[in-house]
Each structure stands twice: as C-alpha cells, then as structure tokens.
C-alpha cells in the first residue's frame, strides 16, 4: 500500500460524505414535517462531521500545512472522488430517503471492513462513525418502508426513486485502484449490501432489485462526475474562492 492510495481512499470517503451532506443540508428548514426536518439535519451533521475527520486525516497525510478546508474548498470537479450516488439531486422525499438508505447501508458494510483494516486512524474514524451510520440505516430504511407500504402515491414515488437511483449503486462495488491497494473486499461488500437492501425492499413491498439487469454508471471514484457536481461545488466553494487567503 502506497501513501498515495491511502490519501486517495481517504479523500474518496471524505468527498462522498461531504457531497451527500451538502445535498441533505438543503432540506434544513424545508422538510415535510418538523420532526423529520430535525432528523435529516442530524444525519447531515453526522455526514459533515465524518467528512471533517476524513479530510483532517488526508490533510495530515499530505502534509505541508494542508487543511480540511483546502481539500473541501480548493479542489475542482475532476479532483473530487465522491461516489456518483452522493451527488444525485434531492428530488422528492422518496429520492432523498432512498439515496440515504443505499449510502448508509454501504457505509455500514465498508466501515465494518475498515474496523479490521491495517490503517489504525481509518479504523478509529470508522468505529466512531459506525454508531452514527447504524442509526442512519434504521432511520432511512424505516422511511423506505413507510413510503413503499404507505399510500398508492408514496409507493409509486418510491418505485420512481428506485428507477432513478439504481443505476448509480453499481459503482459502489467496482473497486477503484486505491481500493484494490487497500484490499477492500468489494465482493463481500456487494453481497452483504444486496442482502440488507433486499430485506428492506421486501418489508417495504417493493420489487426485489437486481444488480445485473441494469446498466450502471461509473466514474465518480476516479473524478469523472455527472453534470450535477459542478453546480454543487460552485455553491459550496464560492465564499472561500471569492476571498482567498482569509480566516472564517
């Protein structure tokens, strides 16, 4: 394992959590009911917190006075390594919930592997984050059930969300070179994740998904994104870049 792979992998984890957090943050003040406005903001706060831990670690590995904010605010579209799933637009509550469920269950499996990985810092961040991620899995999958098995309208919206987001889950299980270097076992990740998601879908009265019958987009892990990311970063980064070299 080279230091470069470790940095890239850590940035992949940092970028994915930041970008999903940035998306979820748009719900704050606009949720469907006050209690859920609070709940999704909790998830968002956890994701931003996780991204900070990963960025701080990446900054430390890079050295030369690099900081978390330099990594979050001063890299461009082609340098971000987040999974494509994380940058997909919020859509309605069904899309947001399903995106969260897919990602949280993926995080749960990935972080469980990292617990036993060679890098002790990543293990420690994974251990701390897993407590949050388990709650995210519960909260979001309960909503998949409510919407899937709620009304006709909510069921239809959930089906539309599956159709929309499913083509972005395949990428999670295609190992990037830095994941191979870190010996991430994507095959086990994939089968555990599929079992968990299938169970949620069954409970939610949604048709069982299949990873083989749909075309899957890839590229995010290596810096090739959808059009959506550029707009997101423009908004996220603009203050820092308008006033370079300032403390905030």
């Amino acid at each position, binding site marked *: 394992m080279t230091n470069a792979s470790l940095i890239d992998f850590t940035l992949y984890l940092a970028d994915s959590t*930041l970008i999903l957090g940035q998306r979820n943050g748009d719900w704050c003040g*606009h949720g469907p*009911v006050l209690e859920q406005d609070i709940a999704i903001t909790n998830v968002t*706060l956890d994701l931003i917190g996780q991204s900070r831990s990963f960025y701080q670690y990446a900054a430390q590995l890079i050295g030369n006075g690099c900081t978390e904010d330099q990594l979050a605010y001063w890299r461009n579209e082609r340098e971000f390594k987040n999974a494509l799933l994380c940058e997909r637009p919020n859509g309605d509550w069904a899309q947001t919930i399903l995106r969260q469920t897919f990602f949280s269950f993926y995080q749960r499996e990935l972080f469980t592997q990292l617990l036993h990985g060679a890098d002790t810092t990543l293990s420690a961040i994974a251990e701390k984050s897993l407590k949050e991620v388990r709650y995210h899995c519960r909260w979001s999958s309960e909503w998949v059930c409510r*919407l899937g098995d709620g009304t006709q*309208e909510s069921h239809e919206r959930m089906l539309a969300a599956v159709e929309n987001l499913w083509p972005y889950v395949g990428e999670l299980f295609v190992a990037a070179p830095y994941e191979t270097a870190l010996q991430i076992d994507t095959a086990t990740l994939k089968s555990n994740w599929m079992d968990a998601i299938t169970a949620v879908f069954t409970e939610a009265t949604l048709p069982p998904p299949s990873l083989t019958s749909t075309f899957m987009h890839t590229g995010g892990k290596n810096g090739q994104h959808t059009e959506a990311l550029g707009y997101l970063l423009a908004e*996220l980064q603009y203050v*820092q870049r308008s006033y370079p070299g300032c403390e*905030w």
Partner: protein
Amino acid sequence: MEHHNLEQIFQDKIDQEIKIEPRDWMPDAYRKTNLRQISQHAHSEIVGMLPEGNWISRAPSLKRKSILLAKVQDEAGHGLYLYAAAETLGQSREQMIEDLHSGRAKYSSIFNYPTLTWADMGAIGWLVDGAAIMNQVMLTRTSYGPYARAMVRICKEESFHQRQGFEVLLVLSKGSDAQKAMCQDAINRWWWPALMMFGPRDGESTNSDMSMKWKIKRKSNDELRQQFVDMIAEQVKLLNMTLPDEKLRWNDSKKHYDFGDINWDEFWQVVKGNGPCNKERLAARKKAWEEGRWVREAASAYAAKQKQKQQAA
C-alpha cells in the same frame, strides 16, 4: 362557583407567582393571548430557519457549516417545544400552521429581511438572537407554566447562538479589509430591524396592559429595547465597528444610552406584508408543507396498517 370568584382565584395565583397550568381555569382572553403569543413565537422559530438556512450550502468553512446547521436545527427544536406548549391551550399544530399560511397568524418581522452576505450569519446571531434573548429571559418567568418551561430550555441555546454570532463577526473584524467591510455592512443593515423586534413604543402597544397584569409580560417594550441598546453599544466596541446611529451616545444622568428614532413607517410596512422577503418566506413555508403532504399521508397510512397487523397477530 361564581365566575368572578374563579377570576379572583386566577389573579391571586398570578399575584403569588404560582404558574397557571393547562388544566387550571383561566379567562378566555388569557388563553387567547397566550395561544396567539406562543404560536407566533413558534412560527417565528420556523420561519426564522429560512434566512439562515440560505447560507448552509455556502458556509465558508466546514466548521462554520456544521455550526450553522446545528443552529438552524436548534430553531426547529425550539419551534417543536413551542408548538407543544401552545397545543396545551387547545389548538392543534396543524391548525396553527394553517393560520400561519393563511396570514391569520403572524411571525416576527425580522425574518422578512434578506441575508445578503456571510456576515449576516454573525449579525443575526449577535443582534437578532441578542434581541430575542432579552424577551425570552423575561419569558422564563411568564405566568403560563408550559411556556415558561419551554423558555428555560430555549434560552440556554439562544445565548449560545448569540456568542457564536458574535464570534463570527469577531473573526471578520480581525480579517481582511473586505471582511471588515462585510462585517460593518451587516451591522448597518440589521441594527434598526433588531430594535424594531421589541415592538411598538409602550403607548402604542395594543396587547400590553393585560399582559403585564397577567404577568405574561414583565417588562415593557421600551424597557427591553433600552436594555438591549445599552448592551450592544458596549459590545460593538469589542468589534471595532460602529452602530449606524448618529444620535447614539451615553447619557450620564439617565445611566443609559440615548438613541435615534426608529423608522416606524418601515416597521408597519413590514408587519403589513411589504417587507423585502415577506412573500418569499411564506411561499417557502407553504411549499414545504404542500410538498410534504403525501409524505405525511404515507406515514399515517403505514402506521394504521402496522397497527392493524399487530391487532390481527
């Protein structure tokens, strides 16, 4: 029991500083005044999430993003306690929300002003939350029990927000020239609207007399406003900034700061719906509520199905 006896017992309790609780007898006007005030306060927390929520996506550092998210989330929490306190007076949250959307219920006019730069996040924390605290500290001793208890929790978080807001401005005030200018500009724009938050002058405030007698309020609008001016006029010195009022100066005989005239035309225009963002704020609330309808319906339908399953099992 005779009605005037009930009213006497009620007033005796108030005079002896015994809290009025939901099941106690209370005059209709007391119930209505509290309901109006608590629901208005709840709506203010919820609408108040919008101007600051604007800047979550653009916060200039990850640390600031986290702090701002947590702050706006706290406001949602405050809204929740307050709706719960208001519900003890016999109105449902849904009804209160409908009243907000139809314009029957009001919220604090301050949230009809726009957040134009990052420095506004500091100015809101320092000035708007600062003004709100003056009122809220008083309300921890208000006569209606559920409202007073909600206020105790809220005040702890609000004073934290005020310090965070001040700290945002403090960093800007020590920063580049552009940051200093941004800081001063935000103070200039938020100062007068913050003073208006205390409401009309004492002689012109319609709900004040009974509210004082019933100890819903314990200080007049002008008393609270003066207290606020005295506090901020000192704190602004720590920022090396100024308040946009040429008449502001220490009056040694009164032991208070004198300050200039508030633009009451502007105040009433904003109350009437003609502020810079009245339409946008209400539209955003209505949109969230309407777009959330199918979600709430799905949750109810699911809960009913689960209950049925449990009963069948």
